Protein backbone atom coordinates (compact mmCIF):
# COMPACT_ATOMS: atom_id res chain seq x y z
CA UNK A 1 0.00 0.00 0.00
CA UNK A 2 1.34 3.39 -0.91
CA UNK A 3 1.85 5.74 2.02
CA UNK A 4 3.60 8.65 0.36
CA UNK A 5 3.11 9.55 -3.25
CA UNK A 6 5.51 12.13 -4.65
CA UNK A 7 4.53 13.32 -8.08
CA UNK A 8 6.50 15.63 -10.38
CA UNK A 9 8.14 17.57 -7.57
CA UNK A 10 10.58 20.29 -8.66
CA UNK A 11 12.45 22.85 -6.62
CA UNK A 12 14.87 25.50 -7.78
CA UNK A 13 17.14 27.71 -5.68
CA UNK A 14 18.05 30.58 -7.96
CA UNK A 15 20.05 29.03 -10.77
CA UNK A 16 20.35 25.65 -9.10
CA UNK A 17 17.79 22.95 -9.75
CA UNK A 18 17.72 20.91 -6.56
CA UNK A 19 14.84 18.69 -7.62
CA UNK A 20 13.83 18.10 -11.21
CA UNK A 21 10.41 16.53 -11.58
CA UNK A 22 10.84 13.79 -8.99
CA UNK A 23 8.20 11.10 -8.73
CA UNK A 24 8.33 8.35 -6.12
CA UNK A 25 6.02 6.08 -4.19
CA UNK A 26 6.91 5.02 -0.67
CA UNK A 27 5.01 2.07 0.69
CA UNK A 28 3.44 1.69 4.09
CA UNK A 29 5.84 0.04 6.56
CA UNK A 30 8.90 -0.13 4.38
CA UNK A 31 12.43 1.02 5.06
CA UNK A 32 13.16 3.34 2.16
CA UNK A 33 16.45 5.04 1.35
CA UNK A 34 17.21 8.14 -0.71
CA UNK A 35 20.77 7.63 -1.85
CA UNK A 36 22.98 9.94 -3.83
CA UNK A 37 26.08 12.12 -3.81
CA UNK A 38 25.90 15.46 -2.01
CA UNK A 39 23.92 17.99 -4.01
CA UNK A 40 21.73 15.36 -5.61
CA UNK A 41 18.57 16.81 -4.06
CA UNK A 42 17.91 14.17 -1.43
CA UNK A 43 18.05 16.61 1.46
CA UNK A 44 15.71 19.04 -0.31
CA UNK A 45 13.24 16.22 -0.82
CA UNK A 46 13.50 15.32 2.86
CA UNK A 47 12.88 18.93 3.88
CA UNK A 48 9.84 19.04 1.62
CA UNK A 49 8.45 15.94 3.32
CA UNK A 50 9.10 17.49 6.74
CA UNK A 51 7.47 20.75 5.68
CA UNK A 52 10.51 23.02 5.92
CA UNK A 53 10.49 23.61 2.16
CA UNK A 54 7.75 23.89 -0.42
CA UNK A 55 8.28 22.56 -3.94
CA UNK A 56 7.82 24.94 -6.87
CA UNK A 57 5.67 22.40 -8.67
CA UNK A 58 4.36 18.90 -8.08
CA UNK A 59 2.38 17.25 -5.35
CA UNK A 60 3.06 15.15 -2.28
CA UNK A 61 0.26 13.00 -0.90
CA UNK A 62 0.14 11.06 2.33
CA UNK A 63 -2.62 8.45 2.38
CA UNK A 64 -4.05 10.27 -0.58
CA UNK A 65 -4.35 13.61 1.25
CA UNK A 66 -2.38 16.67 0.19
CA UNK A 67 0.61 16.83 2.52
CA UNK A 68 1.86 20.17 1.22
CA UNK A 69 -1.23 21.95 2.54
CA UNK A 70 -0.38 20.94 6.11
CA UNK A 71 2.08 23.13 8.03
CA UNK A 72 5.23 21.43 9.38
CA UNK A 73 4.05 21.33 12.99
CA UNK A 74 0.84 19.44 12.13
CA UNK A 75 2.31 16.75 9.89
CA UNK A 76 2.38 13.15 11.09
CA UNK A 77 5.99 13.14 9.95
CA UNK A 78 8.97 13.27 12.27
CA UNK A 79 12.58 13.90 11.44
CA UNK A 80 15.75 12.74 13.07
CA UNK A 81 18.18 15.53 12.24
CA UNK A 82 21.70 14.78 11.10
CA UNK A 83 22.98 17.09 13.84
CA UNK A 84 20.36 15.52 16.16
CA UNK A 85 19.17 19.08 17.06
CA UNK A 86 18.55 18.13 20.68
CA UNK A 87 17.40 20.98 22.90
CA UNK A 88 20.52 21.72 24.94
CA UNK A 89 18.62 23.29 27.84
CA UNK A 90 16.38 20.27 28.41
CA UNK A 91 17.12 16.90 29.95
CA UNK A 92 16.86 13.72 27.91
CA UNK A 93 13.34 13.02 29.16
CA UNK A 94 12.22 16.60 28.54
CA UNK A 95 13.56 16.39 25.00
CA UNK A 96 11.61 13.20 24.40
CA UNK A 97 8.47 14.49 26.12
CA UNK A 98 8.48 17.75 24.14
CA UNK A 99 6.61 16.36 21.17
CA UNK A 100 4.01 14.61 23.30
CA UNK A 101 3.41 17.76 25.36
CA UNK A 102 2.57 19.55 22.13
CA UNK A 103 -0.19 17.01 21.59
CA UNK A 104 -1.62 17.96 25.00
CA UNK A 105 -1.67 14.35 26.15
CA UNK A 106 -2.33 13.59 29.82
CA UNK A 107 0.78 13.79 31.98
CA UNK A 108 0.56 10.16 33.04
CA UNK A 109 0.50 8.99 29.43
CA UNK A 110 3.42 11.20 28.50
CA UNK A 111 5.46 9.85 31.41
CA UNK A 112 4.61 6.31 30.48
CA UNK A 113 5.43 6.67 26.79
CA UNK A 114 8.67 8.56 27.46
CA UNK A 115 9.72 5.87 29.93
CA UNK A 116 8.90 3.12 27.47
CA UNK A 117 10.78 4.63 24.54
CA UNK A 118 13.82 5.43 26.67
CA UNK A 119 13.87 1.81 27.71
CA UNK A 120 13.67 0.71 24.08
CA UNK A 121 16.73 2.77 23.18
CA UNK A 122 18.49 1.85 26.42
CA UNK A 123 18.71 5.31 27.97
CA UNK A 124 16.60 4.90 31.10
CA UNK A 125 19.60 5.59 33.32
CA UNK A 126 20.39 8.79 31.41
CA UNK A 127 16.86 10.25 31.54
CA UNK A 128 17.83 13.25 33.66
CA UNK A 129 21.07 14.08 31.90
CA UNK A 130 21.49 17.00 29.55
CA UNK A 131 22.49 16.27 25.92
CA UNK A 132 26.03 17.60 26.43
CA UNK A 133 26.60 14.97 29.09
CA UNK A 134 26.00 12.14 26.62
CA UNK A 135 28.19 10.37 24.09
CA UNK A 136 27.55 10.71 20.37
CA UNK A 137 25.79 7.36 20.18
CA UNK A 138 23.59 8.21 23.15
CA UNK A 139 22.64 11.57 21.69
CA UNK A 140 21.67 9.89 18.50
CA UNK A 141 19.41 7.51 20.37
CA UNK A 142 17.77 10.45 22.15
CA UNK A 143 17.12 12.02 18.76
CA UNK A 144 15.66 8.76 17.56
CA UNK A 145 13.54 8.30 20.68
CA UNK A 146 12.26 11.88 20.44
CA UNK A 147 11.05 11.24 16.89
CA UNK A 148 9.72 7.72 17.41
CA UNK A 149 7.78 8.51 20.58
CA UNK A 150 5.39 10.62 18.47
CA UNK A 151 4.40 7.48 16.57
CA UNK A 152 4.52 9.28 13.23
CA UNK A 153 3.19 7.82 10.02
CA UNK A 154 6.56 8.56 8.47
CA UNK A 155 9.94 8.80 10.16
CA UNK A 156 12.65 10.66 8.27
CA UNK A 157 16.29 10.05 9.13
CA UNK A 158 18.91 12.44 7.79
CA UNK A 159 22.30 10.67 7.49
CA UNK A 160 21.50 8.78 10.69
CA UNK A 161 24.85 7.04 11.08
CA UNK A 162 27.28 9.53 9.60
CA UNK A 163 28.41 11.10 12.88
CA UNK A 164 29.14 7.82 14.62
CA UNK A 165 32.37 5.89 14.73
CA UNK A 166 32.57 2.55 13.02
CA UNK A 167 31.78 0.27 15.94
CA UNK A 168 28.76 2.25 17.15
CA UNK A 169 27.64 2.52 13.55
CA UNK A 170 27.13 -1.18 13.01
CA UNK A 171 25.40 -1.44 16.38
CA UNK A 172 23.03 1.39 15.53
CA UNK A 173 22.43 -0.09 12.11
CA UNK A 174 21.07 -3.25 13.68
CA UNK A 175 19.16 -1.25 16.25
CA UNK A 176 17.50 0.89 13.60
CA UNK A 177 16.37 -2.17 11.70
CA UNK A 178 15.09 -3.84 14.86
CA UNK A 179 13.26 -0.70 15.90
CA UNK A 180 11.69 -0.26 12.50
CA UNK A 181 10.46 -3.83 12.70
CA UNK A 182 9.14 -3.30 16.20
CA UNK A 183 7.26 -0.03 15.75
CA UNK A 184 6.14 -0.70 12.19
CA UNK A 185 6.64 2.92 11.17
CA UNK A 186 7.63 3.75 7.61
CA UNK A 187 11.27 4.89 7.64
CA UNK A 188 12.85 7.08 5.00
CA UNK A 189 16.58 7.44 5.41
CA UNK A 190 18.62 9.97 3.48
CA UNK A 191 22.25 9.10 2.94
CA UNK A 192 25.24 9.47 0.67
CA UNK A 193 26.70 6.25 2.06
CA UNK A 194 25.67 3.34 -0.14
CA UNK A 195 26.66 0.71 2.42
CA UNK A 196 24.34 2.36 4.90
CA UNK A 197 21.53 2.40 2.35
CA UNK A 198 22.16 -1.14 1.10
CA UNK A 199 22.27 -2.66 4.56
CA UNK A 200 19.28 -0.81 5.99
CA UNK A 201 16.75 -0.32 3.26
CA UNK A 202 14.12 -2.51 1.65
CA UNK A 203 14.18 -0.23 -1.38
CA UNK A 204 16.54 2.48 -2.50
CA UNK A 205 15.99 5.46 -4.75
CA UNK A 206 19.30 6.48 -6.29
CA UNK A 207 19.31 10.21 -6.98
CA UNK A 208 21.62 12.27 -9.12
CA UNK A 209 21.43 15.90 -10.20
CA UNK A 210 17.94 16.39 -8.78
CA UNK A 211 16.51 13.35 -10.54
CA UNK A 212 15.66 9.82 -9.51
CA UNK A 213 17.86 7.43 -11.49
CA UNK A 214 16.48 4.12 -10.31
CA UNK A 215 14.28 2.75 -7.55
CA UNK A 216 14.89 -0.87 -6.61
CA UNK A 217 15.73 -3.34 -3.90
CA UNK A 218 19.44 -3.22 -2.93
CA UNK A 219 20.32 -6.52 -4.64
CA UNK A 220 18.53 -5.48 -7.85
CA UNK A 221 20.34 -2.14 -7.89
CA UNK A 222 23.60 -3.98 -7.53
CA UNK A 223 22.94 -6.66 -10.10
CA UNK A 224 20.83 -4.79 -12.60
CA UNK A 225 21.76 -1.12 -12.76
CA UNK A 226 19.57 0.58 -15.30
CA UNK A 227 21.51 3.78 -15.85
CA UNK A 228 25.23 4.44 -16.31
CA UNK A 229 25.19 6.56 -13.16
CA UNK A 230 23.83 3.74 -11.03
CA UNK A 231 26.29 1.29 -12.61
CA UNK A 232 29.16 3.56 -11.66
CA UNK A 233 27.83 4.71 -8.29
CA UNK A 234 26.74 1.49 -6.61
CA UNK A 235 29.67 -0.70 -5.65
CA UNK A 236 32.84 -1.25 -7.63
CA UNK A 237 32.28 -1.90 -11.30
CA UNK A 238 34.27 -2.33 -14.47
CA UNK A 239 32.63 -0.23 -17.14
CA UNK A 240 33.03 -0.49 -20.90
CA UNK A 241 31.26 1.59 -23.50
CA UNK A 242 30.67 0.08 -26.89
CA UNK A 243 28.24 -0.91 -29.59
CA UNK A 244 25.69 -3.67 -29.07
CA UNK A 245 26.04 -6.62 -31.47
CA UNK A 246 24.47 -10.03 -31.69
CA UNK A 247 27.43 -11.71 -29.97
CA UNK A 248 28.29 -9.17 -27.32
CA UNK A 249 29.53 -5.62 -26.94
CA UNK A 250 31.97 -4.36 -29.54
CA UNK A 251 34.44 -2.05 -27.77
CA UNK A 252 37.07 -0.05 -29.64
CA UNK A 253 40.52 -1.41 -28.91
CA UNK A 254 39.29 -4.42 -26.94
CA UNK A 255 37.16 -6.26 -29.44
CA UNK A 256 34.05 -8.22 -28.63
CA UNK A 257 33.24 -8.51 -24.93
CA UNK A 258 30.79 -11.03 -23.47
CA UNK A 259 27.51 -9.28 -22.73
CA UNK A 260 23.94 -10.40 -22.06
CA UNK A 261 21.29 -9.94 -24.72
CA UNK A 262 20.06 -6.47 -24.18
CA UNK A 263 19.08 -3.32 -25.91
CA UNK A 264 18.67 -2.82 -29.58
CA UNK A 265 21.58 -3.98 -31.73
CA UNK A 266 23.78 -1.25 -33.11
CA UNK A 267 23.06 1.11 -30.25
CA UNK A 268 25.70 2.41 -27.89
CA UNK A 269 25.58 0.82 -24.46
CA UNK A 270 27.60 0.47 -21.28
CA UNK A 271 28.70 -2.90 -20.00
CA UNK A 272 29.15 -3.28 -16.25
CA UNK A 273 31.08 -6.24 -14.86
CA UNK A 274 31.47 -6.69 -11.11
CA UNK A 275 35.03 -7.42 -9.92
CA UNK A 276 33.91 -10.66 -8.25
CA UNK A 277 32.45 -11.91 -11.56
CA UNK A 278 35.76 -11.69 -13.36
CA UNK A 279 37.77 -14.88 -13.86
CA UNK A 280 41.52 -14.86 -14.30
CA UNK A 281 43.23 -17.80 -16.01
CA UNK A 282 46.37 -18.89 -17.80
CA UNK A 283 46.96 -17.31 -21.20
CA UNK A 284 45.85 -19.57 -24.04
CA UNK A 285 46.27 -19.48 -27.79
CA UNK A 286 42.69 -18.21 -28.19
CA UNK A 287 43.12 -14.96 -30.11
CA UNK A 288 39.72 -13.59 -29.14
CA UNK A 289 40.28 -13.83 -25.39
CA UNK A 290 40.93 -10.70 -23.37
CA UNK A 291 44.44 -10.42 -21.92
CA UNK A 292 45.66 -8.28 -19.09
CA UNK A 293 48.83 -7.60 -17.16
CA UNK A 294 48.61 -7.67 -13.36
CA UNK A 295 49.67 -4.26 -12.01
CA UNK A 296 48.72 -4.69 -8.38
CA UNK A 297 47.53 -7.34 -5.95
CA UNK A 298 46.05 -6.36 -2.58
CA UNK A 299 45.10 -8.91 0.02
CA UNK A 300 42.17 -8.02 2.31
CA UNK A 301 41.90 -11.29 4.22
CA UNK A 302 38.63 -12.67 2.90
CA UNK A 303 39.17 -11.33 -0.58
CA UNK A 304 42.00 -10.15 -2.79
CA UNK A 305 41.79 -7.35 -5.30
CA UNK A 306 43.72 -7.62 -8.51
CA UNK A 307 44.23 -4.59 -10.71
CA UNK A 308 44.96 -5.32 -14.36
CA UNK A 309 45.91 -3.16 -17.27
CA UNK A 310 44.29 -4.05 -20.56
CA UNK A 311 45.93 -3.12 -23.79
CA UNK A 312 43.61 -0.72 -25.57
CA UNK A 313 41.69 0.32 -22.44
CA UNK A 314 42.57 3.46 -20.53
CA UNK A 315 41.32 2.35 -17.11
CA UNK A 316 42.58 -0.51 -14.99
CA UNK A 317 40.32 -3.50 -14.65
CA UNK A 318 39.51 -4.63 -11.13
CA UNK A 319 39.02 -8.28 -10.26
CA UNK A 320 38.18 -9.71 -6.84
CA UNK A 321 38.98 -13.30 -5.87
CA UNK A 322 38.18 -15.28 -2.77
CA UNK A 323 41.07 -15.60 -0.36
CA UNK A 324 44.64 -15.31 -1.62
CA UNK A 325 45.11 -14.28 -5.24
CA UNK A 326 46.81 -16.90 -7.40
CA UNK A 327 48.46 -14.38 -9.70
CA UNK A 328 51.51 -12.21 -9.25
CA UNK A 329 52.25 -8.65 -10.20
CA UNK A 330 53.60 -8.45 -13.74
CA UNK A 331 52.02 -11.70 -14.84
CA UNK A 332 50.09 -11.95 -18.09
CA UNK A 333 46.63 -13.47 -17.58
CA UNK A 334 43.53 -14.25 -19.55
CA UNK A 335 40.46 -12.31 -18.40
CA UNK A 336 36.96 -13.62 -18.85
CA UNK A 337 33.43 -13.50 -17.46
CA UNK A 338 30.09 -15.05 -18.25
CA UNK A 339 27.86 -12.97 -20.43
CA UNK A 340 24.91 -13.30 -18.04
CA UNK A 341 27.00 -12.08 -15.09
CA UNK A 342 27.46 -8.71 -16.69
CA UNK A 343 24.87 -5.96 -16.99
CA UNK A 344 24.22 -4.00 -20.15
CA UNK A 345 23.06 -0.45 -19.59
CA UNK A 346 21.75 1.69 -22.43
CA UNK A 347 23.72 4.96 -22.39
CA UNK A 348 21.15 6.88 -24.36
CA UNK A 349 18.78 6.66 -21.43
CA UNK A 350 19.72 8.14 -18.12
CA UNK A 351 17.56 9.04 -15.18
CA UNK A 352 17.87 12.62 -16.27
CA UNK A 353 17.18 11.80 -19.92
CA UNK A 354 19.52 14.54 -21.03
CA UNK A 355 22.63 12.47 -21.61
Amino acid at each position, binding site marked *: MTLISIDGVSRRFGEVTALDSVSLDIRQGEFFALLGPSGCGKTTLLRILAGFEQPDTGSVRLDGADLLAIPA*HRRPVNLMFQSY*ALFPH*MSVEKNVAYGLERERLPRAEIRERVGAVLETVGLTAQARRRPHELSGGQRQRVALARAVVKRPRLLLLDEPLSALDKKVRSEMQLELKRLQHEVGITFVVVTHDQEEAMSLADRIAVMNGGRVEQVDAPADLYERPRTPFVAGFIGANNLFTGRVTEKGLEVDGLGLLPAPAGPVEGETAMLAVRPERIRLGPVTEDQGALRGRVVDVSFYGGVSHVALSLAGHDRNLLAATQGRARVETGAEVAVSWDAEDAALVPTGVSGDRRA
Partner: protein
Amino acid sequence: MTARQPARLLGKAAGRVATMGPGFGFLTVFMLVPLALVLSYTVFRRGRFGGVLYEPTGENFTRLADPLYLDVVIGSVKLAAITTLLALLLGYPTAYLIAKLPARWKVIALVAVVLPFWTNFLIRTYAWIVLLNSEGPVNSGLKALGLGPVELLYTDGAIVAGLLYAYLPLMILPLYSAVEKLDPELREASANLGARPARTFWSVTLPLSLPGVLTGCVFVFVPSLGNFVIPELLGGGRRIMVGNLIRDQFLKARDWPFGSVLALAVIAVLVLLLFAQAWAARRAGRGA
Protein backbone atom coordinates in the same frame (compact mmCIF):
# COMPACT_ATOMS: atom_id res chain seq x y z
CA MET B 1 64.39 18.57 35.72
CA THR B 2 66.48 20.42 33.17
CA ALA B 3 67.95 23.79 33.82
CA ARG B 4 65.86 25.27 31.03
CA GLN B 5 62.56 24.67 32.72
CA PRO B 6 62.70 27.40 35.37
CA ALA B 7 63.94 29.79 32.74
CA ARG B 8 61.01 28.91 30.55
CA LEU B 9 58.57 29.36 33.43
CA LEU B 10 60.10 32.73 34.12
CA GLY B 11 59.75 33.63 30.47
CA LYS B 12 56.11 32.62 30.58
CA ALA B 13 55.50 34.76 33.65
CA ALA B 14 57.26 37.69 32.02
CA GLY B 15 55.09 37.22 28.95
CA ARG B 16 51.97 37.31 31.06
CA VAL B 17 53.04 40.45 32.86
CA ALA B 18 53.88 42.07 29.55
CA THR B 19 50.50 41.28 27.99
CA MET B 20 48.20 41.73 30.96
CA GLY B 21 50.24 44.30 32.87
CA PRO B 22 49.24 47.50 31.08
CA GLY B 23 45.54 46.75 31.33
CA PHE B 24 45.74 45.77 34.96
CA GLY B 25 47.92 48.74 35.73
CA PHE B 26 45.44 51.11 34.15
CA LEU B 27 42.51 49.55 36.02
CA THR B 28 44.39 49.64 39.31
CA VAL B 29 45.37 53.29 39.05
CA PHE B 30 42.13 54.62 37.59
CA MET B 31 39.53 52.29 39.05
CA LEU B 32 40.62 50.34 42.11
CA VAL B 33 42.42 53.24 43.81
CA PRO B 34 39.57 55.76 43.29
CA LEU B 35 37.11 53.10 44.37
CA ALA B 36 39.09 52.46 47.55
CA LEU B 37 39.12 56.22 48.20
CA VAL B 38 35.37 56.49 47.74
CA LEU B 39 34.92 53.51 50.02
CA SER B 40 37.12 55.05 52.72
CA TYR B 41 35.29 58.41 52.56
CA THR B 42 32.06 56.77 53.62
CA VAL B 43 33.17 56.37 57.24
CA PHE B 44 34.48 59.90 57.81
CA ARG B 45 32.92 63.31 58.47
CA ARG B 46 32.54 65.83 55.68
CA GLY B 47 35.00 68.61 55.36
CA ARG B 48 33.60 72.09 55.39
CA PHE B 49 34.44 72.97 51.79
CA GLY B 50 34.55 69.46 50.39
CA GLY B 51 37.10 66.78 51.18
CA VAL B 52 36.90 64.83 54.39
CA LEU B 53 37.83 65.20 58.03
CA TYR B 54 39.39 62.01 59.19
CA GLU B 55 37.02 61.53 62.11
CA PRO B 56 35.24 58.22 61.93
CA THR B 57 31.43 58.29 61.91
CA GLY B 58 28.54 56.07 60.92
CA GLU B 59 26.02 58.81 60.26
CA ASN B 60 26.60 58.90 56.51
CA PHE B 61 24.97 55.49 56.33
CA THR B 62 22.10 56.31 58.64
CA ARG B 63 21.35 59.30 56.44
CA LEU B 64 20.81 56.97 53.52
CA ALA B 65 17.82 55.53 55.35
CA ASP B 66 16.22 59.01 55.32
CA PRO B 67 13.12 58.64 53.12
CA LEU B 68 14.18 61.74 51.22
CA TYR B 69 17.22 59.97 49.86
CA LEU B 70 15.89 56.44 49.89
CA ASP B 71 13.04 57.56 47.64
CA VAL B 72 15.56 58.94 45.17
CA VAL B 73 17.39 55.62 45.08
CA ILE B 74 14.18 53.59 44.76
CA GLY B 75 12.75 55.99 42.18
CA SER B 76 15.96 55.74 40.13
CA VAL B 77 15.93 51.98 40.26
CA LYS B 78 12.31 52.08 39.13
CA LEU B 79 12.99 54.34 36.15
CA ALA B 80 16.05 52.32 35.16
CA ALA B 81 14.03 49.11 35.46
CA ILE B 82 11.18 50.48 33.32
CA THR B 83 13.73 51.64 30.74
CA THR B 84 15.35 48.19 30.74
CA LEU B 85 12.04 46.40 30.36
CA LEU B 86 10.96 48.63 27.47
CA ALA B 87 14.37 48.22 25.85
CA LEU B 88 13.97 44.46 26.09
CA LEU B 89 10.47 44.52 24.61
CA LEU B 90 11.59 46.75 21.74
CA GLY B 91 15.03 45.26 21.36
CA TYR B 92 14.21 41.58 21.21
CA PRO B 93 11.99 41.65 18.11
CA THR B 94 14.46 44.03 16.45
CA ALA B 95 17.43 41.79 17.20
CA TYR B 96 15.46 38.73 16.14
CA LEU B 97 14.53 40.23 12.80
CA ILE B 98 18.06 41.49 12.15
CA ALA B 99 19.43 38.00 12.86
CA LYS B 100 17.08 36.61 10.23
CA LEU B 101 17.99 39.12 7.51
CA PRO B 102 20.18 38.05 4.60
CA ALA B 103 23.87 38.67 5.30
CA ARG B 104 24.09 41.92 3.34
CA TRP B 105 21.10 43.53 5.03
CA LYS B 106 22.31 42.36 8.41
CA VAL B 107 25.40 44.57 8.16
CA ILE B 108 23.31 47.55 7.08
CA ALA B 109 20.85 47.03 9.93
CA LEU B 110 23.61 46.69 12.51
CA VAL B 111 25.30 49.85 11.28
CA ALA B 112 21.95 51.62 11.55
CA VAL B 113 21.62 50.44 15.16
CA VAL B 114 25.03 51.86 16.08
CA LEU B 115 24.71 54.99 13.93
CA PRO B 116 23.32 57.27 16.71
CA PHE B 117 26.57 56.83 18.62
CA TRP B 118 28.29 58.85 15.93
CA THR B 119 26.46 61.97 17.08
CA ASN B 120 27.18 63.67 20.37
CA PHE B 121 25.09 62.34 23.22
CA LEU B 122 24.11 65.80 24.47
CA ILE B 123 22.98 66.94 21.06
CA ARG B 124 20.82 63.87 20.70
CA THR B 125 19.31 64.50 24.11
CA TYR B 126 18.60 68.14 23.27
CA ALA B 127 16.84 66.93 20.16
CA TRP B 128 14.32 65.21 22.41
CA ILE B 129 13.55 68.56 24.06
CA VAL B 130 12.69 69.92 20.63
CA LEU B 131 10.55 66.87 19.88
CA LEU B 132 8.66 66.76 23.15
CA ASN B 133 8.08 70.40 24.10
CA SER B 134 4.56 71.79 24.09
CA GLU B 135 5.07 73.39 20.64
CA GLY B 136 7.07 70.48 19.27
CA PRO B 137 6.15 68.18 16.39
CA VAL B 138 4.69 65.48 18.63
CA ASN B 139 2.32 67.87 20.33
CA SER B 140 1.41 69.59 17.04
CA GLY B 141 0.51 66.17 15.71
CA LEU B 142 -1.59 65.40 18.75
CA LYS B 143 -3.25 68.80 18.52
CA ALA B 144 -4.10 68.22 14.90
CA LEU B 145 -5.75 64.98 15.90
CA GLY B 146 -7.60 66.77 18.69
CA LEU B 147 -5.77 64.80 21.37
CA GLY B 148 -3.41 67.40 22.69
CA PRO B 149 -1.50 69.25 23.77
CA VAL B 150 -0.17 66.87 26.37
CA GLU B 151 2.60 67.64 28.78
CA LEU B 152 5.41 65.44 27.52
CA LEU B 153 8.62 67.22 28.39
CA TYR B 154 9.85 67.31 32.00
CA THR B 155 8.06 64.14 33.00
CA ASP B 156 9.24 60.71 34.04
CA GLY B 157 8.05 59.55 30.65
CA ALA B 158 10.45 61.93 28.95
CA ILE B 159 13.31 60.63 31.10
CA VAL B 160 12.47 57.04 30.21
CA ALA B 161 12.18 57.96 26.52
CA GLY B 162 15.59 59.63 26.67
CA LEU B 163 17.24 56.74 28.49
CA LEU B 164 15.59 54.23 26.18
CA TYR B 165 16.75 56.11 23.14
CA ALA B 166 20.28 56.40 24.48
CA TYR B 167 20.75 52.78 25.51
CA LEU B 168 18.53 50.69 23.21
CA PRO B 169 21.51 49.74 20.99
CA LEU B 170 23.20 48.27 24.05
CA MET B 171 20.22 45.94 24.35
CA ILE B 172 19.96 45.08 20.67
CA LEU B 173 23.60 44.14 20.11
CA PRO B 174 23.98 41.37 22.73
CA LEU B 175 20.50 40.08 21.89
CA TYR B 176 21.38 39.97 18.22
CA SER B 177 24.54 38.03 18.91
CA ALA B 178 22.63 35.57 21.13
CA VAL B 179 19.84 34.96 18.61
CA GLU B 180 22.27 34.79 15.72
CA LYS B 181 24.18 32.00 17.45
CA LEU B 182 21.09 29.81 17.81
CA ASP B 183 21.04 26.76 15.60
CA PRO B 184 18.10 27.21 13.20
CA GLU B 185 17.67 23.44 13.25
CA LEU B 186 16.50 23.68 16.86
CA ARG B 187 13.53 25.77 15.72
CA GLU B 188 12.88 23.29 12.93
CA ALA B 189 13.10 20.41 15.39
CA SER B 190 10.57 22.15 17.60
CA ALA B 191 8.16 22.64 14.69
CA ASN B 192 8.75 19.07 13.60
CA LEU B 193 7.70 17.88 17.04
CA GLY B 194 4.43 19.74 16.78
CA ALA B 195 5.14 23.16 18.26
CA ARG B 196 3.49 26.24 16.83
CA PRO B 197 5.86 29.17 16.17
CA ALA B 198 4.83 30.91 19.42
CA ARG B 199 5.49 27.77 21.45
CA THR B 200 8.87 27.37 19.76
CA PHE B 201 9.72 30.91 20.76
CA TRP B 202 8.82 30.45 24.43
CA SER B 203 10.27 26.96 24.84
CA VAL B 204 13.34 27.05 22.63
CA THR B 205 14.39 30.44 21.27
CA LEU B 206 13.88 32.54 24.39
CA PRO B 207 15.45 30.19 26.95
CA LEU B 208 18.46 29.66 24.73
CA SER B 209 18.95 33.38 24.16
CA LEU B 210 18.58 34.14 27.89
CA PRO B 211 22.30 34.89 28.39
CA GLY B 212 21.97 37.60 25.73
CA VAL B 213 18.81 38.93 27.38
CA LEU B 214 20.59 39.22 30.72
CA THR B 215 23.65 40.87 29.23
CA GLY B 216 21.46 43.38 27.39
CA CYS B 217 19.51 44.13 30.55
CA VAL B 218 22.68 44.81 32.53
CA PHE B 219 24.09 46.96 29.71
CA VAL B 220 20.95 49.12 29.75
CA PHE B 221 20.18 49.13 33.47
CA VAL B 222 23.65 50.11 34.66
CA PRO B 223 24.13 53.33 32.69
CA SER B 224 20.43 54.22 33.09
CA LEU B 225 20.70 54.05 36.85
CA GLY B 226 23.76 56.26 36.99
CA ASN B 227 22.71 58.77 34.35
CA PHE B 228 22.28 62.36 35.50
CA VAL B 229 22.24 64.32 32.24
CA ILE B 230 18.98 62.96 30.87
CA PRO B 231 16.96 63.45 34.09
CA GLU B 232 18.22 67.01 34.19
CA LEU B 233 17.55 67.89 30.55
CA LEU B 234 14.37 65.91 29.92
CA GLY B 235 13.12 65.71 33.51
CA GLY B 236 13.70 69.40 33.99
CA GLY B 237 15.21 68.76 37.39
CA ARG B 238 11.81 67.86 38.79
CA ARG B 239 12.78 64.26 39.12
CA ILE B 240 16.11 63.71 40.81
CA MET B 241 17.80 60.46 40.03
CA VAL B 242 20.55 59.00 42.11
CA GLY B 243 23.14 60.11 39.58
CA ASN B 244 22.08 63.75 40.06
CA LEU B 245 22.14 63.30 43.79
CA ILE B 246 25.68 61.97 43.79
CA ARG B 247 26.91 64.71 41.55
CA ASP B 248 25.22 67.32 43.73
CA GLN B 249 26.75 65.91 46.89
CA PHE B 250 30.21 66.20 45.43
CA LEU B 251 29.95 69.40 43.45
CA LYS B 252 27.21 71.47 45.13
CA ALA B 253 26.66 70.29 48.69
CA ARG B 254 30.35 69.44 48.98
CA ASP B 255 29.48 66.47 51.14
CA TRP B 256 31.93 63.92 49.81
CA PRO B 257 31.29 61.27 52.45
CA PHE B 258 27.55 61.16 51.79
CA GLY B 259 28.13 61.27 48.04
CA SER B 260 30.40 58.27 48.52
CA VAL B 261 27.73 56.42 50.46
CA LEU B 262 25.26 57.03 47.62
CA ALA B 263 27.81 55.87 45.08
CA LEU B 264 28.38 52.78 47.17
CA ALA B 265 24.64 52.11 47.26
CA VAL B 266 24.51 52.24 43.46
CA ILE B 267 27.53 49.96 43.20
CA ALA B 268 25.88 47.50 45.61
CA VAL B 269 22.72 47.36 43.49
CA LEU B 270 24.79 46.77 40.36
CA VAL B 271 26.98 44.10 41.93
CA LEU B 272 23.88 42.24 43.09
CA LEU B 273 22.52 42.48 39.58
CA LEU B 274 25.76 41.22 38.02
CA PHE B 275 25.77 38.25 40.38
CA ALA B 276 22.19 37.46 39.43
CA GLN B 277 23.12 37.72 35.78
CA ALA B 278 26.17 35.49 36.12
CA TRP B 279 24.15 32.93 38.02
CA ALA B 280 21.32 32.88 35.49
CA ALA B 281 23.71 32.83 32.53
CA ARG B 282 25.54 29.87 34.01
CA ARG B 283 22.25 28.06 34.56
CA ALA B 284 21.06 28.77 31.03
CA GLY B 285 24.44 28.09 29.49
CA ARG B 286 25.02 24.78 31.19
CA GLY B 287 23.33 22.91 28.43
CA ALA B 288 24.50 25.02 25.53
